[in-house]
């Protein structure tokens, strides 16, 4: 594979993959926060 094609492929897939994965983590954390809000424990007591 040509060096520049390799570099651009890695840049597109690497950067895109990183952004998508972090979006996925961010959304999942948002859901977890809704499932287990901070107040959850205080109300339970």
């Amino acid at each position, binding site marked *: *594979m040509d*060096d*520049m094609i*390799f*570099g*651009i*492929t*890695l*840049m597109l*897939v*690497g*950067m895109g*993959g*990183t*952004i998508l*994965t*972090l*979006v*996925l*983590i*961010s*959304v*999942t*954390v*948002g859901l*977890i*926060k809704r*499932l*287990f*809000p*901070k107040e*959850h*424990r205080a109300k339970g007591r």
Partner: protein
Amino acid sequence: MVDAILNALTSLLMGIGYLLDHGLPNVVMILVSFLLFYLGIRKGVEPLLLIPIGFGCLLVNMPLSDVMDKGGVLKTLYDMGIINELFPLLIFIGIGAMTDFGPLLENPKILLLGAAGQFGIFITLLLSLFLGFSKLQSVCIGIIGACDGPTAIYVTSKFAPEILGAVSVAAYSYMSLVPIIQPPVMRILTSKREKEIVMGSMGRGVSKETRILFPIIVTLITGLIAPMGLPLMGMIMLGNFMKESGVVERLTKASQEEIANAVTLFLGLAIGGTMEGHAFLKVETLIIFSLGFLAICFDTVAGVMFGKLMCLLSGGKINPLIGAAGISAYPMAARVVQIEGQRYKKTNYLLMHAMGANTGGQIGSVMTASIILSVLKGLQLI
């Protein structure tokens, strides 16, 4: 008898003879080790790393030194924990155990700044390819832009051990130079009005369940999307999981202190051992240092520009300066943001927001490395 004594005395002077005949690169590297001592002791630049690296460098450059020969002390350390990537992974457990992801969990959108802060990796990778480095060497040079020493060592020791010394010294040096490298870029790219944006206070906190589930979620997602990086991310998240679980304090403390300290010493010495003058003093080393510097500048540019975009989309509620903290140099980059913010508005406290972006940068850098490794595997280059 006299001959024997003369021979014995001559053997004592062999080192000096070697140094005079072939030792100029070694003399230069001994001076470099003095520079590393100076930076570590007088300037406080990453002393925990630069002191052992400097001493390893000093030892390996002494004339006729056998510390990096088979069975030598530094070679043994190198084989024990660098070539098989064990040391950086053990350090990652400590980093996970030391990191508080709380600010990030309070505002998970900030995690995206941790992606923008990795842009420099790819620009540097392209530049390295353009300058004639091999594909795998270029990846390793680009990883300096992760601003993450253990990740740089992990990837380089695996795929381009011939440039390990240059890459790791560059990674750690530039990590500690973040307070010098970032501010000019931040000032140029943001307007006075943007710099003065006051962000709302944090502090509602997140539940213990969220804190405990976070490392598990990140491990699962990394394992599914980029399994080649699972050792890296898995170790950080193991450390954080132990910390947040609150039930293995002894293990957490050992990871934060004893294990991290011992491994840092061994890692530094072994890295120093790769800095033998004849192998290290090449034009390509200087190019690697220059590219590493550019990588961190590009990271900062991308982070601040992404911060500006988030500022725009949030209706001016996000201060773009926090974008600069989306790199892995923790907590230095966050502190830089706080200081810069207060230069323009004394009452502005960006620290916790910047800490969120900074921990996002830690995850982002490891995630990027994980994805790169998985793509390389997919392309059958490794």
